[in-house]
């Protein structure tokens, strides 16, 4: 019997006419590791919700066809029962933890399914150990980092002992190190414990090769379902951005063979061993804004300890560093939204900051009001305001949504709106804090182009990001941070080919920074030369 099976499933959310699932047929066998990829809004989350009966019991709407989990039809069994057979881990750790203490969090599911009280504590502890999180038992869930939070979410599912684990973009909020660790944990659970895993993800880098099967979704349908190499060949044409970056480079170069991992790519290219590139630091003339020897305490943490960095006009600078390195703090200081304890900020006072959580930007009831808000607050007269707002909506492709409620937009549109609401003020420096969270590859490319377009108009653009493959595509300079200090200020982008963790997959495999550069080199037949 299949662990999970969809038979001709069609589903529409309440009040929508366009079905989110439009004839999905899929069988997942026990013990498989299945990766689901597809454009944002194609129905990945809906599919996973349907597997647990949340669609339709929690969300309502119209359903046709049959979904069975362990042989149980989700129409007849509510999520409360299905939770004994399958567990779901969501994208945002902060949104899915229900209890205050980690210990209670892991016990919550067991309590809900009326597990015998005497053994709850023991099972919870065992699950925490299996998820590599037993040291967190007594912590408050509010104090966990993103990676720790996701581990607890997985432990909570493991504790219930379900044979099927569903994960909806579990790494999209994590830094590269934490994401790697989490995916390693998931593959280990699958290999060592025989838990069936179905995982939806945009950053497919590592998982693509490890999966037993890759399912490609498109507008509510399954357009491909097969082994990773075949899936890679299927995607090489139209859906290249769903591939791991190395495979993207090979596909862009029109090569037949599509290596999915750095190791395979190097094997393909012969023995290419990248040597560290020279450290050339090319600062621009006077930076638009410079932060000098900044010290800042936030709460109990020393967020900045002597950080110095500048942002050059006409340049896209990527700011990289692990969780808690102080990247957001640096940006807030540069935008003069936080006062420094020591040190100073020089240069333009016209900086725009788009926060890490785009939901924080949505203050008004219509898209148009949202863009105009900053102009209203800074006292721009009405006629000029209207012109500037209209122009900005046009430029960000939001004109059609002018009267919509911002919260009714898709995540990609919301992100664009948040950027538009800041660029309308014509800042000299635009700071985008983690703009690619949960974005699909296509939208990331568009955002990268937008950043470069703004830079070519003379704005200094800073991209604070965990997504190194994105930085490799969009940035011209790289600033790296750790422990509240700046390690390298505006290093040339070739740095991204030399580091260990701060190197994209393409760079590790070929020695070139971006997909396009690597593809050119591959096409020219020149053996990947090191930068």
């Amino acid at each position, binding site marked *: 019997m299949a662990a999970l099976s969809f038979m001709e499933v069609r589903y529409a959310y309440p009040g929508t006419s366009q079905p989110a699932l439009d004839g999905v047929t899929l069988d997942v066998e026990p013990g498989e590791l299945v990766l689901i990829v597809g454009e944002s809004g194609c129905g990945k989350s809906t599919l996973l919700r349907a597997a647990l009966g949340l669609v339709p019991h929690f969300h*309502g709407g119209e359903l*046709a066809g049959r979904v069975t989990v362990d042989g149980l039809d989700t129409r007849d069994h509510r999520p409360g029962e299905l939770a004994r057979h399958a567990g779901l881990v969501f994208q945002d750790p902060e949104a899915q933890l229900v209890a205050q203490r980690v210990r209670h969090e892991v016990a919550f599911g067991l309590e809900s399914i009326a597990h015998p009280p005497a053994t709850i504590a023991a099972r919870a502890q065992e699950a925490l150990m299996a998820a590599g999180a037993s040291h967190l038992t007594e912590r408050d869930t509010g104090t966990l980092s993103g990676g720790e939070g996701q581990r607890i979410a997985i432990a909570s599912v493991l504790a219930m002992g379900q044979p099927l684990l569903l994960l909806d973009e579990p790494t999209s909020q994590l830094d590269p190190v934490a994401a790697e660790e989490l995916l390693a944990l998931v593959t280990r659970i699958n290999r060592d414990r025989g838990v069936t895993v179905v995982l939806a993800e945009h950053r497919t880098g590592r998982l693509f090769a490890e999966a037993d099967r890759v399912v490609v979704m498109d507008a509510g349908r399954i357009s491909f379902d097969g082994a990773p190499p075949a899936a890679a060949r299927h995607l090489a044409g139209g859906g290249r951005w769903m591939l791991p970056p190395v495979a993207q480079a090979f596909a862009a170069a029109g090569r037949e063979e599509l290596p999915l991992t750095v190791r395979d790519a190097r094997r393909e290219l012969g023995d290419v061993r990248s040597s560290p590139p020279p450290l050339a630091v090319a600062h621009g003339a006077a930076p638009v804004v410079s932060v000098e020897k900044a010290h800042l305490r936030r709460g109990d943490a020393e967020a900045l300890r002597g950080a110095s960095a500048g942002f050059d006009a006409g340049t896209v600078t990527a700011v990289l560093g692990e969780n808690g390195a102080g990247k957001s703090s640096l940006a807030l200081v540069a935008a003069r939204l936080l006062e420094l304890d020591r040190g100073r900020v020089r240069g333009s006072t016209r900086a725009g900051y788009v926060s890490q959580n785009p939901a924080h930007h949505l203050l008004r009831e219509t898209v148009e009001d949202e863009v105009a808000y900053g102009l209203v607050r800074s006292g721009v007269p009405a006629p000029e305001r209207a012109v500037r707002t209209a122009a900005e909506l046009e430029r960000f492709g939001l004109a059609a949504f002018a009267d919509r409620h911002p919260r009714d937009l898709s995540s990609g549109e919301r992100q664009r709106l948040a950027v538009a609401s800041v660029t309308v003020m014509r800042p000299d420096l635009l700071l985008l804090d983690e703009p690619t969270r949960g974005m699909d590859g296509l939208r990331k490319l568009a955002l990268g182009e937008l950043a470069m377009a703004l830079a070519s108009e003379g704005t200094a653009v800073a991209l604070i990001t965990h997504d190194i493959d994105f930085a490799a595509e969009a940035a011209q300079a790289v600033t790296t941070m750790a422990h509240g200090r700046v390690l390298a200020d505006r290093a040339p982008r070739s740095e991204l080919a030399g580091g260990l963790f701060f190197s994209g997959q393409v760079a590790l495999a070929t020695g070139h920074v971006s997909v396009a550069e690597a593809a050119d080199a591959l096409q020219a037949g020149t053996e990947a030369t090191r930068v």
Partner: protein
Amino acid sequence: MSSLVLILAVGCVVLGVAGVERGPNRSKELALIAALAAAAAGGRVLFAFVPNVQPVTIIVAVTGATLGPRAGIAVGGSAALLSNAFLGQGPWTPWQMIGWGLVGATAGMLPRLLRNRFALAAFGIAWGFLFDWLMDVWAWSALGQNADATSFLAFVSTGIPFDVAHATGNVVIALIAGPTLIRMLDRYARRLHASFSPMEGTT
């Protein structure tokens, strides 16, 4: 006197809790009430340094008016309990729970009226005073045999500047945010009851 007042307060809280217990036990309702209470409490803590802007009263009133008295009581009571975890828990906590619980309950009885923003503002003024007076009851009751109308007036008059500020804060929030909040919660109340149906045109 103080004993009587203590018993009365505990009784009111127990009554409110009993009312909430008789409500539905669905995850959506519980999470919604919890989130509104957390928003009210979070706003109270955040705005603690903006003099006398108390988002709690209006948020609770709007909840009562749109989701009913039970939800109003639950949001009011838990917002008081939670925000005091930061601002200081004490014998005044039950009084604040009762005060905001009553705000929610009375708002729940005036659902039509409070959809008008000026009515909501007037409601905010009234409760701005009533709420603060209720807070005085506790200290007043400690006067024992001296706890009479005169001494209550004395307590109330020392607090008038605060009452006025609290009421003004309510008016500002009611006028600026009230209509939006009502629309938002109305839209949301409709989503609470999910039901699914078979899709047409298929077997």
